[in-house]
């Protein structure tokens, strides 16, 4: 009984500063962010996204150049957009948006956001399940599977979901500590798994690598039924696959703990270890799998990593999935909790974890990850533009920041109009212009900027510019 009470007290003592700026003594050093970003972006998704470039017929030259340019743009977005806003406000995306857009708008946004996070975390739990299922000879999902293919799959997913949820219930610190420890090891396993199989691809010296990469691994020919990826696809995907987190400002939840905005550059560890080395490594493993299985449709990162690196490879898939699912689940919990701040963080996370685990049972979540990741970023992007403009641009135009808070309004129409018009514009470009989803983020962001400035100017013309927020000095 006393241990139960102790556990409850510990859970209720978890304070993540959902509605107050992070106090100065709670700020974290750069090592925490380097570990978190490296762990989060060297993750389960990398075991899925890397192979998809192979499936989409990316050429070796396009892949390398596209990833370098796209990753640099992503790091710059994290630092100059998210980092700048995070240290100025030190609040979560959800609380900041509530001050700008009003609680009624935020309610809708948070439900959409939490659902997206749940699906993303769910796909990572599914990736982990492909490794956990190896000793049980679990039937693995294939590229065309939508529903769970066995009871064993469901049991495995629920086991992993339960562990992930319990850890997330204890807050950011536990997640950050584990990610710190796992990150360097995961990078080593990714690299080792790929290097160890190179001789099976006919690469026996460093000088053999590029010719084989061009002709065998990334030969520029898409698999049957897959569209062709060019430099532009790869560059924009690398830049925008985490659009919700940088341009969309979801990572305010993490970077608000940073001492300086320049900690946003620590995302480079995630981009160049995860979204460069790990994507290339997993692409090499998948290419070998396709050659040796003669084009099998089975898509299971666990067995592929196990075959290349043994038990350490399979454990890597489990942990890689887990270190992505955990912070994502944590973010989803924050999103839901902001609907009603009186709800306890741990209870909300428990609920979110259950929803996530149910979603993880469906393999379609993994197979459609490329499109889902792009859609997720696109939906959150306009609100990121709104927050950036509200914090930095509106005061310079003589307009009020945090308009909903200032006017005690439940809904700021300027934000609703911006979100709606931006997404309708992107949808129109996709349907009528035939523009693929990977390219919609950039024009969509400029539309969001234009609409929000125009709408704010129109709506706020009778309000004097008095910001209710006291600027932070740290």
């Amino acid at each position, binding site marked *: 009984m006393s241990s139960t009470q102790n556990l409850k007290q510990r859970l209720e003592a978890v304070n993540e500063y959902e509605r107050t700026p992070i106090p100065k003594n709670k700020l974290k050093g750069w090592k*925490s962010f380097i570990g978190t970003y490296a762990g989060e972006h060297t993750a389960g998704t990398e075991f899925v996204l890397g192979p998809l470039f192979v499936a989409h017929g990316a050429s070796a030259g396009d892949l390398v150049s596209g990833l370098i340019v796209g990753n640099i743009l992503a790091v710059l977005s994290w630092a100059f957009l998210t980092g700048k806003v995070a240290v100025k406000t030190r609040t979560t995306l959800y609380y900041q948006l509530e001050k700008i857009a009003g609680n009624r708008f935020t309610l809708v946004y948070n439900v959409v956001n939490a659902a997206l996070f749940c699906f993303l975390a769910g796909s990572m739990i599914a990736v982990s399940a492909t490794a956990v299922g190896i000793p049980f000879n679990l039937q693995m999902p294939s590229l065309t599977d939508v529903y769970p293919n066995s009871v064993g799959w469901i049991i495995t997913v629920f086991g992993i979901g339960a562990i992930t949820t319990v850890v997330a219930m204890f807050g950011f610190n536990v997640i950050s*500590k584990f990610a710190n*420890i796992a990150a360097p090891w995961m990078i*080593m*396993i990714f690299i080792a798994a790929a*290097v160890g199989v*190179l001789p099976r691809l006919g*690469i026996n010296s460093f000088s053999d690598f590029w010719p084989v990469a061009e002709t065998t691994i990334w030969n520029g020919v898409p698999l049957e039924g897959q569209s062709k990826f060019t430099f532009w696809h790869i560059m924009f995907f690398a830049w925008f696959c985490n659009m919700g987190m940088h341009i969309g400002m979801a990572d305010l939840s993490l970077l608000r703990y940073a001492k300086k905005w320049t900690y946003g550059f620590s995302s480079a560890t995630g981009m160049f270890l995860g979204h460069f080395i790990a994507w290339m490594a997993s692409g090499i493993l998948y290419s070998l799998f396709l050659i040796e299985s003669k084009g099998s449709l089975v898509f299971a990162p666990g067995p592929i990593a196990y075959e290349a*690196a043994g038990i*350490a490879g399979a454990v890597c898939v489990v942990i890689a999935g887990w270190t992505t699912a955990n912070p994502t689940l944590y973010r989803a919990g924050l999103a839901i909790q902001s609907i009603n701040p009186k709800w306890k963080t741990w209870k909300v996370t428990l609920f979110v974890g259950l929803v996530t685990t149910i979603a993880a049972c469906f393999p379609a979540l993994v197979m459609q990850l490329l499109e889902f990741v792009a859609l997720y970023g696109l939906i959150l992007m306009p609100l990121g533009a709104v927050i950036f403009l509200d914090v930095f641009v509106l005061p310079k135009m003589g307009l009020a920041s945090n308009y909903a808070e200032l006017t005690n309004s439940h809904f700021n129409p300027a934000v609703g109009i911006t979100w709606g018009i931006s997404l309708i514009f992107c949808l129109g470009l996709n349907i009528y212009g035939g523009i693929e989803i990977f390219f919609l983020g950039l024009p969509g962001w400029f539309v969001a900027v234009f609409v929000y400035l125009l709408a704010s100017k129109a709506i706020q013309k009778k309000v004097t510019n008095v910001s209710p927020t006291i600027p932070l000095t740290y």
Partner: protein
Amino acid sequence: MIVATILKIISFAALALTLVPAFLVFWGYIEPNLSKTLMLIGTVVWFGTASFWMNKSEEEEEEVI
């Protein structure tokens, strides 16, 4: 302090043990099965030792702010 230093040395050696065997396979010095065993040993030792020192320095850093 000395214990922490020894733990760090063991941790980094374990980390090397997860990577180096793959290159030895690549150059043809060892078989893949041996490489997989060494990687597993490296993994166990890394997680067994790194957890004792990796987050400590971060906590100390926060306390002196």
